[in-house]
């Protein structure tokens, strides 16, 4: 394992730049399968999530194609409508549990978190690998469930139907149970890493904001996911042993299942969105060439979202037999969560204000995030308001709102992060022109798909139906066309990203001029990340980064700021340069 390489002088600073990197450090299948390197584990997660993103995307295409005609295009007989139920269930379950939850924290987070922090690895590298294999196991169980009788309950697995249907609920739910533990262990690992592995000088308020949001996410993962675990275990018991905990026939209560489920699944949407918000907080200052506006507010609003996010689950059940008092409290708390979310959005806007925007692909995705997430957030107020929700509950309005937050927010944030860190991860530059075209296609396609669904939903189109009244057809057709446009956009993305792996230009250490620590390493980073504790400065101070034509990237010009050294002395407080 030991490779000693001489430290080469590099214009990027006196960081160790060994001749090999984490990709070339060791070779062979087992060097990946048994790796303890957080970067390789991150890459494996990334590959897996992208694969499942494709699978779930295919299910989405089937759903949208079915809905081109009022009586259905693919599933046209009454007996085949159950297959439609299976399609939307698989789309939802795979997207949520196999893509959105691990995409940013487990895939991108695993790769960049320790480097951003200035650590050599996460606190528990073996646990990290174990957690990846739990993910793989859960994914295999989920795939088996598709083969053994695809689940048709919807991704929420509401009882009593989920306890009665003949489809392979146990396999899917068992898979998600295992995935949950993968998520818990990742969260634990990140919390301990951030608490205990910060190098000298990396104070809490000098951490890049991506770390703050990942930290908040990890807290939710650790505190909410066990409740999902026991809920799903009870559901399995319900099916296998007929224990009746969620079955009113035996004195049980189906609404209890909903409480349990949403106690996890509402915080889970913050597991999904918070890391994407973290990506935003990195991309927006970098491509605006400005210091982040309101650092502490952005940092603490992540924790605010995490805490309030635990207290709002009841808003999923307004019409489902809650007391009016309880519903009112949940409605109020739901409104409350808008405050920290809005703090973030306004701070990103203020960061861009009078900045010099550099519209590279990551920034294009970040702008798309801002636009879509704002629509998603504002329509959330409709759904959080008690009386309006009674009308909109279980309609396409909910579908549209959810996709604006989860797709327009999380996934576009993930795309921003993927493009932002792609040169760092692979050491290659992707085709910038194609990247912008694809981003445009995704943005236009996305809005074409989901804007009509708000209208449909408010006109009464219920969710999860294989057929609909002819009145809704124009909206559905528009929606489907948008979905096809998105598919083209993502196919293009896949094409140029794969192309870049083989033919892309070599990436410089710092192609975007970012000031966080991962850009001080070579691209791709060396096996050990840092041989000496790195010098920690202000993560959003771009003032001494200048473009160098010879490396086609940014380098630090030490004449422009304080001397850049590897000393471990603690520099003065962050934010002092502005």
């Amino acid at each position, binding site marked *: 394992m030991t490779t000693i390489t001489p430290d080469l002088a590099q214009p990027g600073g006196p960081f160790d730049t060994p001749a090999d990197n984490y990709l070339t450090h060791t070779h062979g299948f087992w060097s990946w399968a048994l790796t303890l390197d957080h970067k390789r584990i991150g890459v494996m997660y990334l590959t897996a999530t992208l694969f499942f993103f494709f699978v779930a995307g295919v299910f989405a295409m089937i759903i949208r194609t079915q809905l081109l005609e009022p009586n259905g295009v693919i599933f046209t007989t009454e007996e085949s409508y159950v297959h439609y139920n299976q399609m939307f269930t698989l789309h939802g379950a795979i997207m949520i549990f196999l893509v959105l939850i691990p995409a940013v924290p487990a895939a991108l987070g695993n790769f960049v978190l320790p480097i951003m922090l200035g*650590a050599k690895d996460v606190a528990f590298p073996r646990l990290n690998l174990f957690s990846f294999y739990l993910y793989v196991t859960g994914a295999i169980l989920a795939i088996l469930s598709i083969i053994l009788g695809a689940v048709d309950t919807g991704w929420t697995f509401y009882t009593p139907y989920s306890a009665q249907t003949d489809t392979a609920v146990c396999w899917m739910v068992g898979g998600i149970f295992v995935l949950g533990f993968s998520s818990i262990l990742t969260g634990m690992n990140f919390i301990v890493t951030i608490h205990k592995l910060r190098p000298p000088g990396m104070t809490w308020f000098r951490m890049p904001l991506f770390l703050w949001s990942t930290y908040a996410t990890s807290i939710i993962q650790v505190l909410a996911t066990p409740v999902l675990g026991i809920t799903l275990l009870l559901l399995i018991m319900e099916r296998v042993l007929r224990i009746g905990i969620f079955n009113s026939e*035996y004195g049980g*209560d189906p609404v209890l299942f909903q409480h349990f489920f949403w106690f996890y699944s509402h915080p889970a949407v913050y597991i999904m969105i918070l890391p994407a918000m973290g990506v935003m907080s990195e991309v927006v200052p970098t491509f605006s060439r400005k210091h982040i506006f309101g650092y502490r507010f952005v940092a603490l609003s992540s924790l605010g979202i995490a805490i309030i996010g635990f207290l709002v689950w009841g808003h999923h059940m307004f019409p489902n037999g809650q007391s009016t008092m309880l519903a009112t409290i949940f409605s109020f708390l739901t409104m409350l969560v808008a405050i920290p979310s809005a703090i973030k959005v306004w701070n990103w806007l203020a960061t861009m204000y009078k900045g010099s925007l550099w519209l590279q692909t990551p920034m294009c995705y970040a702008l798309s995030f801002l636009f879509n997430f704002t629509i998603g957030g504002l329509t959330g107020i409709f759904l959080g308001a008690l009386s309006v929700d009674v009308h909109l509950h279980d309609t396409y309005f909910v579908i549209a709102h959810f996709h604006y937050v989860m797709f327009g927010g999380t996934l576009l944030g993930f795309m921003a992060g993927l493009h932002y860190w792609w040169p760092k991860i692979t050491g290659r530059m992707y085709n910038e022109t194609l990247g912008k075209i694809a981003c445009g296609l995704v943005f236009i396609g996305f809005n074409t798909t989901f804007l009509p669904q708000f209208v449909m939903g408010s006109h009464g189109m219920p969710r999860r139906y294989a057929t609909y009244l002819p009145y809704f057809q124009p909206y559905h057709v528009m929606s489907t066309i948008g979905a096809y446009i998105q598919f083209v956009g993502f196919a293009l993305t896949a094409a140029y990203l794969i192309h870049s792996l083989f033919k892309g230009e070599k990436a410089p250490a710092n192609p975007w001029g970012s000031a966080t620590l991962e850009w001080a390493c070579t691209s791709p980073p060396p096996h050990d990340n840092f041989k000496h504790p790195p010098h920690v400065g202000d993560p959003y101070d771009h003032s001494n980064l200048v473009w160098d034509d010879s490396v086609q990237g940014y380098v630090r010009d030490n004449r422009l700021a304080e001397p850049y050294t590897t000393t471990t002395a603690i520099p003065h407080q962050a934010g002092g340069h502005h």
Partner: protein
Amino acid sequence: MTTIAEGHEEPGHHEHPKFLAHHFDTPQQQFDSGKLGIWLFLTTEVLLFSGLFCAYSVYRSNHPEVFEYAHLYLNKIYGGLNTLVLIFSSFTMAWAVRCSQLGTAPAVFKIPLGKGRHKVLFSVSNQKLCVVLMGITIVCGAIFMGIKGIEYNAKFKEALYPGYYYNPTERPGEVGKVENTNESPIAVKPITASAPADAPPLAHDANGIAFEESRVPRAAIGPQGLNPQWESTEAARDAGEDIVTGHEVGNEPKNVQIFFSCYFLMTGLHGIHVLVGMSLIFWILLRARKGEFGPEYYSPVDFVGLYWHVVDLVWIFLFPLLYLIS
């Protein structure tokens, strides 16, 4: 389990003890990380059980009569014995952790004779004592599981299954005595001992005659407090009659199966945790035998010990909640 990684020692780096993983700077940092990690993990364990405790609270407040009635099926002697066994095992485990911290230093057992004098009984290396104490802890875990097995077995014999399969033939307090009470007017007539797998559940009326229950979801009927049967039980209680064993009313409340759902799920999940804890202690025991632990490095013993205490603590809550009702 994560504290030692295949390190790649770098020449010129400061002294790296064997147990120190490459990405930590000091043993203290590694220990602190592990400690925070295990506490976070234990939090998730508590939250895993919290779902069950929550379900228990909901059903106990919805059906208090069920819990008062059904808990009499449980054997307090066995439950109490198990509580003592687990508390004792926590003591041996905590002692083992202390021994691992002391390492090879001798542990001296002595009898005080007063006036500052004492008689040394024997002395043994703390490392060896640590192994012995962990062995005792594992044996305690096994005794616990054994007693639990006896209890489960008794429940299965009486068809005290959770949910759908709940179908006992005898009353609590009369288990094993039903033959002698041939005159008792309230002895429940044995219903079919094992229901066919897809048959609807059988309920019994006030005279103990089995009938097929309606398939209408129970939620539509309303809380049990409004159930006439419950009211009659209430009236009996007001009249100072012994509801459960009282040979005056003795109606079995509805939904007793929900108690056994809670009972089997809670004790079952706890039992799995005991088994996991025993395996972990066994693994640590083997490592302790090789002399891996000492004053510098004892975190695995410490962390497994913490896990064992939490498993113990969960039982401390389960025992009164399930066995000591009313």
